[in-house]
């Protein structure tokens, strides 16, 4: 019989513990998790990039719903545990769910500390701990009004930077004379304050908050000296307290935190604890590195490896604000028995300070230039005697008495046991071993295999340096290519920043993102235009001059400068009336070539540009709309005859194809999108090499995506099976919308899927009904603006100038 393991809290510490445990002993426990937060396990550290707009919540999920399902773990989301009955060995949630345990893990983390000043409970006063806080801040930020952040430590400053990035006017109130005084010395604190002020964040130090003002919602903050600062949002980030109430009620031994042995067991031998709620040997922790260490120890004990014990270690601190580099570790208080080495470069904004005792490093503060943090930290941890290299020590590992080495050489010079990723405790040797033995070539692969740089991400530069040193020329750190010569930003960066900075016109974007050319180029302009059409469907005014000629005149340019016209034939079906109209049109305009395309419709080629509106007018009368054969948009939905006629047909494949095409036509996409629906697995519509395909089966619809049959030939991946036509449509629309929002311009679905991961796409579209519905709704919204027949518009006179010469010189009057 499996033992029952119950975990209270689904934060970063127990999440990591379960990973280790399930790897070591996959069948030992039936695991049940209760989480007060109504969501899966995510990287809490990365809430700051979510706040600033550099990441989305989806990108910081650690274990998606699928993770629990695949491992048979029961997760109660939004269930706070209110009681532990140690006699009956059960826990009970606020919704009345009672579950028995053999072993229990309490991982309730900590609670943000709220200073009990008058007004602290007004609406608009927030803490900074979970996604709800971030969402509330984002909502408040929409007003673009004033925010006050109380607390100038790590969290407070990350919140301030994020809110500023979102357009708020931000003031930081800090009780002490300099910022982050527990991690930085006054000099570095002062540099940091300057940098923040340069970014427009106001900082008031030695600020004693007297009360928070407001009737039913916050209007400002009053300081003890009488100063009043207006604010519609107040974020309190003054510290955390281990969340021990539940453990205390259950009669466990509690001090500042839940008292644990180095084996992570509490005063009850069947109850364990990990995370910020733990106190071990008098210490409590607030950074993930030691918590991950606890996770490893506890997983060992639960899986029978009792050799592990938790030992205290220092964790370096870094601030995750883009563009600000700081690093600190150890003890840097002054003292008679201590010496220090300081390097200042005022123009470059660099400050480095090493605190020494008996020729050993005991404290490190780096500001502005932090690449050597790992090297110094390694010397500190190993208590290396530095008297030999004392003269050049402050210049870092790269400086060996001569010119500084490049950064790659600096990483190469680190010993194999030097720690690279502080959060996950990964040292250089582990990473090098993984790169060489597993043949890893990209940062993502290294993250996946070693977890290095996968938590807070500040060691990314070191990991890249290490890859360069290990792989030589085979590693290209700039594998993320810039969009074009006009910028250093990648497509990803640009898409993210369009959203984060709410850039809604191409000139605004070029200004804000410091484009290097005056008007962009033929590569970036169409891409930018697409991104904005996709991201701001209601607000953005399509920049027609940034579209390639085909999309500007809604026909395909041919090698002789004439055009081809391909009307839609929904799902490949036509009629005598339609065919007659095409025949008449061909005769009337003397169209040289008529051809059946590979996309189940008819192409008329060799039409003069001047004739296009008249051709469309005639086609329009017969009910035709543009087939978008020229568009980075929905092209064709091929179908087979299905149940209407075919003796093998299982579903109405023609009907579904027509329905999809009618629902989705007119939408713009990163690259062209072609679909097909086959009525049975014989697959006459060739659905398994399309961007999106459907194979009808007796029990419903098998949805495929990420196929190609052009420059590359690739069979599709299966997204999943659904039962009804309505569901099929919803899933197809959702996956296309996901691609619309994430794809790089000109990147077909199969390339996007390779980049994002087929698993991840399945997780969001098949596994997460809310996400799917949200994608679907956004697509439907954008269609209200997109589903306009461009031919009809032009027949009615739009862009008339396109189709007529400006002047014919023989008829003109001379000037003067």
């Amino acid at each position, binding site marked *: 019989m499996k033992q029952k393991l119950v975990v209270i809290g689904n934060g970063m510490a127990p999440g990591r513990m379960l990973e280790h445990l399930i790897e070591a002993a996959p069948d030992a426990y039936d695991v049940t998790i209760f989480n007060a937060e109504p969501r899966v396990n995510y990287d809490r550290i990365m809430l700051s990039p979510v706040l600033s707009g550099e990441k989305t919540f989806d990108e910081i999920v650690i274990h998606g719903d699928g993770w629990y399902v695949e491992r048979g773990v029961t997760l109660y989301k939004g269930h706070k545990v209110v009681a532990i009955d140690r006699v009956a060995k059960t826990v009970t949630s606020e919704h009345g769910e009672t579950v028995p345990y053999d072993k229990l893990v309490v991982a309730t983390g900590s609670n943000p500390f709220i200073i009990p000043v008058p007004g602290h409970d007004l609406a608009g006063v927030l803490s900074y701990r979970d996604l709800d806080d971030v969402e509330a801040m984002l909502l408040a930020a929409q007003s673009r009004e004033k925010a006050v952040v109380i607390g100038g430590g790590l969290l407070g400053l990350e919140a301030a930077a994020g809110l500023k990035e979102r357009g708020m006017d931000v003031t930081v109130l800090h009780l002490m004379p300099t910022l982050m005084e527990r991690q930085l010395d006054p000099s570095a604190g002062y540099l940091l304050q300057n940098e923040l002020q340069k970014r427009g964040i106001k900082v008031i130090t030695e600020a004693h908050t007297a009360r928070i003002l407001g009737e039913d919602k916050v209007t400002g903050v009053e300081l003890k000296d009488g100063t009043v600062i207006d604010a519609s949002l107040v974020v309190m980030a003054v510290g955390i307290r281990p969340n021990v109430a539940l453990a205390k009620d259950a009669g466990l031994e509690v001090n500042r935190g839940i008292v644990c042995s180095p084996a992570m067991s509490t005063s009850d031998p069947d109850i364990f604890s990990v995370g910020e709620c733990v106190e071990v040997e008098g210490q409590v922790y607030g950074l993930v590195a030691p918590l991950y260490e606890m996770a490893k120890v506890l997983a060992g004990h639960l899986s029978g490896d009792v050799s592990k014990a938790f030992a205290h270690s220092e964790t370096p601190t870094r601030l995750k604000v883009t563009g600000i580099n700081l690093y600190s570790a150890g003890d840097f208080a002054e003292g008679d028995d201590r010496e220090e080495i300081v390097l200042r470069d005022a123009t470059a904004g660099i400050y480095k300070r090493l605190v020494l005792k008996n020729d050993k490093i005991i404290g490190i503060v780096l500001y502005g230039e932090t690449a050597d943090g790992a090297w110094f930290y390694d010397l500190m941890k190993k208590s290396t005697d530095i008297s030999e290299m004392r003269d050049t020590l402050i210049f870092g590992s790269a400086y060996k008495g001569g010119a500084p080495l490049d950064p790659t050489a600096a990483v190469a010079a680190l010993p194999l046991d030097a720690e690279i990723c502080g959060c996950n405790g990964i040292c250089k040797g582990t990473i090098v071993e993984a790169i060489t033995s597993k043949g890893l070539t990209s940062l993502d692969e290294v993250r996946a295999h070693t977890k290095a740089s996968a938590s807070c991400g500040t060691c990314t530069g070191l990991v890249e340096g290490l890859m360069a040193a290990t792989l030589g020329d085979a590693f290209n750190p700039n594998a993320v290519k810039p969009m074009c010569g006009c910028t250093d930003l990648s497509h990803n960066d640009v898409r993210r920043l369009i959203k984060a900075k709410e850039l809604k016109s191409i000139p605004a974007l070029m200004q804000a993102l410091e484009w290097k*050319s*005056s*008007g*962009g*180029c*033929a590569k970036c*302009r*169409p891409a930018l235009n697409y991104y904005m059409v996709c991201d701001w469907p209601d607000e953005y005014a399509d920049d*027609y*001059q*940034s*579209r*390639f*000629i085909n999309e*500007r*005149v809604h026909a395909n*340019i041919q*090698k002789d*400068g004439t055009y081809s016209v391909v009307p839609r034939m929904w799902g490949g079906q036509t009629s005598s009336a339609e065919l007659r109209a095409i025949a008449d049109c061909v005769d009337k305009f003397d169209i040289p070539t008529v051809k059946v395309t590979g996309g189940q419709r008819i192409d008329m080629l060799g039409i003069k540009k001047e004739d296009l509106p008249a051709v469309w007018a005639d086609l329009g009368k017969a009910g035709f709309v543009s087939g978008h054969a020229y568009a980075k948009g929905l092209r064709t939905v091929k179908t087979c005859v299905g149940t209407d006629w075919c003796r093998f047909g299982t579903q109405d494949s023609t009907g579904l194809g027509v329905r999809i095409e009618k629902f989705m036509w007119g939408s713009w996409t990163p690259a062209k999108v072609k679909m097909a629906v086959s009525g049975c697995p014989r697959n006459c519509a060739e659905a398994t090499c399309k961007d999106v395909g459907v194979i009808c089966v007796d029990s419903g619809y098998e949805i495929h995506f990420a196929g190609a049959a052009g420059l590359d030939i690739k069979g599709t991946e299966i997204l999943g099976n659904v039962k009804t036509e309505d569901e099929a449509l919803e899933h197809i629309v959702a996956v296309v919308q996901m691609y619309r929002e994430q794809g790089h311009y000109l990147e077909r679905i199969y390339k996007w899927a390779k980049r994002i991961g087929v698993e991840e796409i399945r997780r969001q579209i098949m596994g997460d009904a809310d996400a799917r519905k949200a994608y679907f709704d956004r697509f439907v919204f954008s269609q209200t603006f997109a589903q306009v027949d461009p031919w009809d518009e032009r027949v009615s006179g739009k862009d008339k*100038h396109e189709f007529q*010469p*400006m*002047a*014919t*010189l*023989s*008829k*003109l*009057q*001379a*000037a*003067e």
Partner: protein
Amino acid sequence: MKGDVMNAFESEWISIGAVTDIPREGARCVDAGALRVAVFRTAEDDVYAIEDRCPHRGGPLSQGIVHGGCVTCPLHNMVIALDTGEAQGADEGHVTTFRTQVRDGIIFIAASDIASIAQTASAA
């Protein structure tokens, strides 16, 4: 036909329309017998006239994307500078340019430039 064309070219500058007839960062064509001139308007409202024929394989430059002072040919992406008619970057090639003037928002094109080319074009 030929006579007509010549008549129009008798004085030095011929008006071909208003600057505002051309969209910003766009182009319109002027037909002069067998010659086709592409008249461009940049984002800064500068106006340039060049032959509507890419030196590569004759692509209609008037249909390209206009960026900075250049146009990218719609057929195979050669980039042509509008003021000199020279191909940019690694490509080689040259397009005939025509002098223009803008007075009170009206574009004039140099008749003599057109005439010499138009004659060879229609003779060919």
